[in-house]
């Protein structure tokens, strides 16, 4: 496994609107991460988690919930956030990705996809942290 490989399966990416998918791919290219690692990074950025958190494999890929595609610790943090904020857990994924792509947005509905240099810089730091951990 290369340092930048993600343990999130690609069901989340495939579920996203086309313009969001395209943006994720651009951010992946700019940061040197895989597309799924960008999604993991978006959640860690949004939930203010340690970049080195939850590098264990996904618990299952058979569940119907998109959250089941995430590594267990990340799933659990997303569920905790959802409970505290009183929103559906799956919405956390949308909020996190929208926030990475456009911090002035709330959901994909109002997300003006653009190349956010602050987000790219954070993802590059995340890629470096993953590489150090994998070494």
């Amino acid at each position: 496994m290369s340092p930048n490989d993600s343990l999130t399966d690609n069901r989340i990416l495939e579920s996203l609107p086309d313009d969001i998918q395209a943006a994720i791919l651009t951010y992946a290219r700019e940061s040197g991460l895989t597309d799924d690692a960008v999604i993991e990074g978006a959640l860690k950025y949004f939930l203010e988690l340690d970049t080195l958190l939850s590098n264990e494999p996904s618990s299952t890929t058979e569940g119907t919930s998109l959250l089941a595609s995430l590594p267990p610790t990340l799933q659990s943090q997303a569920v905790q956030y959802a409970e505290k904020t009183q929103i559906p857990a799956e919405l956390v994924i949308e909020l996190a990705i929208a926030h990475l792509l456009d911090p002035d947005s709330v959901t994909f509905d109002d997300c003006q996809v653009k190349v956010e240099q602050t987000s790219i810089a954070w993802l590059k730091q995340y890629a470096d942290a993953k590489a150090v951990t994998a070494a």
Partner: protein
Amino acid sequence: MNDSVEVINAEALRILKVLEEMPFDACCPLTKEFAELPPSPGIYAVKHRTQGILYVGKSGSVKGRFKGGHKALGWAFMDRLNPDDVGIAVVTLELQWIRLSLQLEQIVIRQRLPPYNVRVN
């Protein structure tokens, strides 16, 4: 449809009232980490102690929005405003309003025309 427009307008005006009436001392002060801001979806106002609302915005994480830097705080700096006289008021959005945040924000901005929204948009 008219009902839903009225309901959205009413909620936007409620949010504006909360933002306007929040005492300055109850606003979140400007700090490096913005630890007092909620990491959740909300509509916020950058306020001055005497000038009132300077800017209104929305974000999926109000705390995250400010931790990454904010143009309104840049304008406040350019205007030589004392950082101790600038604070942030927030109304967090309940689930039913999350997908209507753009409409709510636009109504609030149209009602109040905050100077920094006019300047930066």
